[in-house]
């Protein structure tokens, strides 16, 4: 069933000796907020991981396809074959006929988890081809400043013969890795029941899959660059109605992250340096649902 309630969520995750999100503008250094030296992870970075996780666990499940894939084999021949089956396409634009345009969007929402969740732009002219997804994420920011380190590494091999000759047989190359020794990041999310109801049909099942993705996605996103990333806490505020019962910023303020070791404003060493409290109470376990009435 399509979700009936508005939700907000606070998502806390951390990184140890890894680069959670490289900045293409800064030679792939971890993203930093220049104002405060706190680390940043963009919304699209988190969305990418959610997509990848759903693709992993719902492989071949009807209705859980992912439109924006990270990599895959494009069978272009196949594509051409069934394009030939199609009734003569009139133009490159969305069907002018609004009913038809709606059908196309509805079909996309039904079949693709990411279109249903985050929305998609499918057109140039007709408004109904643009889907605003119910799930909205913001940039994640670290609780305290992070200090990115540049770690130089060596490789005991070279790529080309020319390089080998130049080194007269030494065959070594050097590279660099950028890591954050430790950072606890906090992201905020919003889920609109109205957008789910009106257009995309984002359901309660989809919602539990989203929570699952947030809990487990880093477990399936291991790589040399990422280091150790862990989803730590997810606090879900469930409003009693679709419209909501409280301003989102007030709800977010109920989740307080304090330093128990070290000083606020200085980089932390481990998750144990923090205490996470909800309404003054320490929270344990990954997911906490708070009914907002």
């Amino acid at each position, binding site marked *: 069933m399509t979700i009936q309630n508005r939700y907000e969520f606070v998502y806390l995750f951390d990184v140890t000796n890894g680069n959670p999100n490289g900045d293409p*503008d800064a030679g792939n250094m971890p993203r930093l907020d220049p*104002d405060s030296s706190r680390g940043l992870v963009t919304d699209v970075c988190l969305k990418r991981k959610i997509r990848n996780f759903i693709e992993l666990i719902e492989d071949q499940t009807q209705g859980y396809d992912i439109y*924006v894939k990270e990599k895959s084999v494009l069978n272009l021949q196949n594509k051409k074959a069934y*394009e030939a089956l199609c009734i003569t396409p009139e133009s490159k634009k969305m069907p002018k006929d609004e009913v038809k345009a709606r059908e*196309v969007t509805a*079909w996309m929402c039904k079949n693709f988890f990411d279109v249903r969740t985050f929305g998609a732009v499918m057109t140039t002219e007709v408004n109904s081809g643009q889907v605003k997804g119910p799930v909205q994420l913001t940039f994640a920011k670290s609780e305290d400043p992070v200090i990115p380190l540049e770690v130089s590494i060596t490789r005991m091999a070279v790529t080309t013969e020319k390089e080998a000759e130049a080194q007269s047989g030494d065959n070594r190359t050097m590279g660099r890795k950028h890591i954050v020794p430790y950072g606890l990041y906090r992201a905020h999310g919003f889920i609109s029941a109205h957008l789910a109801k009106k257009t995309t049909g984002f359901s309660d099942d989809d919602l539990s899959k989203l929570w699952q993705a947030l809990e487990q996605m880093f477990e399936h996103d291991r790589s040399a660059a990422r280091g150790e990333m862990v989803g730590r806490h997810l606090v879900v505020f469930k409003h009693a109605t679709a419209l909501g*019962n409280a301003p989102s910023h*007030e709800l977010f303020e109920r989740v307080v992250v304090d330093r128990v070791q070290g000083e606020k404003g200085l980089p932390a060493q481990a998750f144990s340096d923090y205490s996470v409290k909800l309404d003054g109470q320490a929270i344990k376990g990954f997911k906490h649902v708070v009914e907002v009435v």
Partner: protein
Amino acid sequence: MSYGIKLHIWGEYACFTRPEMKVERVSYDVITPSAARGILEAIHWKPAIRWQIDRIHVLKHIRFESIRRNEVGSKISARNVTSAMNAKSTQDLHLVSDEDRQQRAATVLRDVAYVIEAHFEMTSKAGSDDNVGKHLDQFNRRARKGQCFHQPCMGTREFAAHFALLGEGDQWPQSELNEAQKNRDLGWMLHDIDFAAGYVPHFFRAELKDGVVEVPAFQSEGFKS
């Protein structure tokens, strides 16, 4: 305008993209009337009403920051979707982000806060049971409780906008602008897009006077591009 509303909005980031610099996005200095309207509509809107922005109070110093992200270059083509629908298979319908990658920088605003003064007018779609009071009440009720149709945003959805109603007797948020920052010419700025007339953008000459941008009525001094 006796039926006006005042809404305090704020956020950590904002991107009100200039139409002339939208590939590598560069934000306007302040929120556009069009984006402000979008925020109001996220809280309450019906086809029976049309929001008009009257005044924008700028509360914080205008600062920029650059963010570069990996983005995809293409939109979903309706034609491919139709073929997939006909073939009843989603197998080959997708976009490979690695192969369609564009790195784009965005010059966005940091730490913004505004007070939006606006009112609405009834449209021709208003029915017999639509009246000004009803919609005004509904908007005020929602905004006061923090209710919204969807979370409003500062230009783009990754930059959520927080909001609070400024009712009668509520204390106004303090402006952090110093005297020198309160007056400046913001140049030509997008007012809004005329959706009824085939997406024609209207521009106006925006000027920050004593911390306030006075927004002309949409049809009056709007210049077409």
